[in-house]
């Protein structure tokens, strides 16, 4: 009983939204907007549910004194402090922005910085892990793009730098071609997935 009902609802709403794009009737537009609003509201509520779940998980971990509960203390304290500050001073208040600017941004920025070192190390060991034609091509491409990104000691090498340099050529031809192919594939896949959902074949909603 549960599966057919949810499937019917999903198909009906999907068709209504789709028809709103093809049939420029005010009724369909209105229905589409209403359904979208409902979806956006549900997505917003889902954020609250996620926050609540996070709070419960870490709270349970603290209550059971499980290993790693110290980090749960930090999470809950930070969450509560941010909520309190934002509630008091607003999301764009001074202290709210201060917490964001001096805690969240540096933490995440440092993680991205470590990534740079990891990527360089991985590129250096690429040929050791796998030595074949495609790995060599990839290795060479990386070097060309990196070198063509910046002038070498302030000197732009003709043929490498510039609008018609090797770097621009690699980016605009093979990279763009590949990107276009990927985008087309993604679009077709999304289209097929949407049709399958509208037909009831796929039921990602758990029906």
């Amino acid at each position: 009983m549960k599966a057919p009902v949810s499937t019917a609802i999903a198909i009906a709403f999907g068709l209504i939204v789709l028809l709103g794009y093809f049939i420029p009737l005010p009724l369909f537009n209105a229905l589409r907007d209403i359904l979208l609003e409902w979806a956006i509201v549900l997505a917003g509520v889902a954020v609250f549910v996620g926050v609540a779940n996070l709070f419960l998980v870490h709270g349970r971990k603290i209550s059971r004194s499980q290993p790693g509960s110290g980090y749960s203390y930090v999470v809950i304290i930070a969450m509560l402090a941010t909520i309190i500050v934002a509630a008091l001073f607003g999301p764009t208040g001074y202290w709210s922005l201060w917490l964001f600017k001096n805690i969240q941004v540096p933490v995440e920025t440092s993680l991205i910085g470590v990534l740079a070192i990891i990527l360089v190390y991985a590129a250096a060991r690429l040929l050791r892990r796998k030595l074949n034609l495609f790995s060599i091509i990839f290795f060479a491409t990386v070097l060309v793009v990196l070198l063509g990104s910046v002038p070498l000691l302030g000197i732009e090498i003709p043929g490498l730098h510039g609008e018609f340099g090797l770097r621009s050529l690699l980016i605009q031809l093979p990279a763009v071609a590949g990107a276009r192919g990927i985008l087309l594939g993604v679009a077709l896949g999304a289209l097929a997935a949407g049709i399958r959902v509208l037909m009831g074949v796929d039921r990602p909603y758990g029906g």
Partner: protein
Amino acid sequence: MAADMAELRCPMCGKANPEELDVCQFCQARLKPVLPSAPIPEDEQAAVEGSSRLPEPAAQDDSLSDWLNFLRDSGAESEGPPAESGGEDQPPPAGELPQWLERTGGEASEPVGEGDSQDWLDSLRKRGEEITGPLGQETVPEESMDEDWPASVKLPDQDYVPEWLAGASLGDQAGEPLAEPPSEEESSLESDDEPDWLQKIRLRQRDETEESQSVESAPAEEPGMPDWLGEPASGVPAAPDEPAESVSDWLADLRSGGAPVGEEVELPEAPATGEELPAAEQELEQPLEETPAPPPEILEEAAAPVLGAAEEIPTAPQISDEEIPDWLAGLVAGKAAAAAAGSVEADAESLPDWLADLDKPSDADSGVIVPFGEEEPGLTFDWLQEQVRADQGLAVPPPESSEAEEVQAEKITPFVGDLSDFLEEEYLSTPEGERPPAAQPEEGLTPAELPNWLEAMRPLDAAAMSAAVLDEGESQIESSGPLAGLRGILPAEPDVARLKKPPTYAMRLQVSESQQANANLLDELVKTEGQPRAVRMGAAITSQHVWRLIIFVVLIGVIIWKALTGSQEVALPQPLPEILDTGSVIGALPSNSVVLLAVDYEPGFSGEMKATSAAVIDHLMLKGAYFALVSTSPAGVGLAEQLIQDASALGGHQYQVIDRYANLGYIPGGPMGVVGFANAPRKMTPFALDVDSTAVWSREPLQRVTRLADFDLVAVLTEDADTARVWIEQVQPALDSTPLVMLLSAQAEPMVRPYYQSSSNQVQGMVAGLLGGGSYESAHQDLLAGDGPARRYWDAFSLSMLAAVILIALGGLVSLLTQALASRDTSEGEKKS
């Protein structure tokens, strides 16, 4: 039974076959014996007799016991076809005796077959002439004995009239129940498979036993005849006018060696010559001299069940009174007269020995109730089997086992009061030392050869296994049923039905070594699956750590050095086309334009995005644009706020919230939120996040903005290609002529460039990464006073990039050299090997 009579049962497979077939249609065994045209030679007689012990074709009456069929056929000189199946269950014509009766030596007016069936009777006659012994002091000469006549056959007294004959003479006796229904005790002792007539015999015997106890002197030579011999079918009363003398006459003739007493009785022809008789049959004559005659009462009583059995035999011929031959009627009348006149002794004397043996008191006469199956063991056909076996040259069975001896001692016989009594009684009464030796093949006689039809029925490897089979059969004596006491009988009960101790099975599971090994392996795998594996603690510092440390030191060293020195020696890159287009778009904006700024990047990319977008935002600020900040990520609100404040501070602009920008906040739902915002921006973000003033849509300049196309410019800041694609695909259709500019991270540039370079021109401008920001600053030197973030980061960025390239190249070279050396060592090692 009628249907059975129209079919022949294959002796091998037991399946029904049409009567007209000679060979079984299933197993190709012969159904009908071969009819020899010539007299059967001596050496084959034994084989014939022995083969006659085998299950006979179904042409014969199945209901009759084998001994009866044997006796019937034994008198035939040639293996003629068995009693015509059509005639067995049909009453013979009027005036004719039934075939089975005719064979018993009745009036030979209708000889059965070619007169061959009366050979046995002839032999009886001859024997009766020569028999001397307890019965009639007559002995049967060996040469006059029929081939197939057992050695222990004893003719009854001459004057003995069997009861069945006496009973048949009285018409009112035909339908009388000749035997009382067996009591429960008797029935319990009897086999379930025992025919009723046999049961009646037992009852009669028991009754006779009781009666004989009151008889002081039971004449040992009372006349008597086997029940089967004179007892006709039911409803066949003997002719009362038939003088008993006729019956007694032929019986007396048998005893006296052919001297007729009274009216002559034509007996069945004896074999032409005694030479045709097998030697075994000749030897059977000897015990006749010593076999006492059974008491007439016993024979009479024994005849009664036979009568009754005959009644139950559906195939027994129905003989009317008119059909009873004179001699047979005379037998019955004579018996009755003799019994009435008390001339039993005289009759007994006149009867042949073998008939007189029937009067011999048996266990039933003595009052001993012998359970069925436990009769005298001597009254079995073991001697017949031995004889046949000897004739055939088969191995003589070993001495009887203890069980067999016990059985023999108990004198178990399958029959009580039937023909076998007078046949074997004398043999059993004879001491072992006086008993004739086992029949040995005489010199000059060739071993018995099986006839063709019998040979065809013989199963494969029977010759090889016959000995073993016979050995097994010899050691097993049937202890119950109508064949009790016989050897070589197929067990009535299958082995599975016999009570025996069930095999004891070990409770332990029988597992082979390989199976046990596999099971142990699987058990270990399952156990180890749930157990945490101990992580090997490697070295604290490995080459990987070293290399990372080196890379870190190099990169961070360059950056710190350049940052500390503040050098700006490296020139900014030349403007790229997308940079120029972005500048053109922004330059074409009117003053006090309203720009939608979507900040959708993660806080970790804020440094790059700041360097990428600082010049563009400053350019927009210089144009006096009003920023409407939105974000589809929760952290975008703070990033947007910070971005504007940093750009304002960097460019020296006094951008205050509400006056110069409005932070509309977070749009949930991802792509759905973007679509909703594109369709109805006011509905999706009705309030600003400013505490002081939230109703920005009612204030200038957002008051004139009702839809997304009302914005003068839409700029999207993101580091993710998918987010960029969502904004492009969902928002751009609603923008109409409003330009869309993408401010991206370097990693998202390849996926957004197709939208910029496509003919649809969905993206009008694009600034990607630090290179794009530096190029934009290079194109607009007046922006940020020429000292924007890109300018400050460019030297360090270029130098660190060069260092990274060098490190990567060095690593690649090292990897190539390492592998080359390893392969060379491997090849050298292979060459050496």
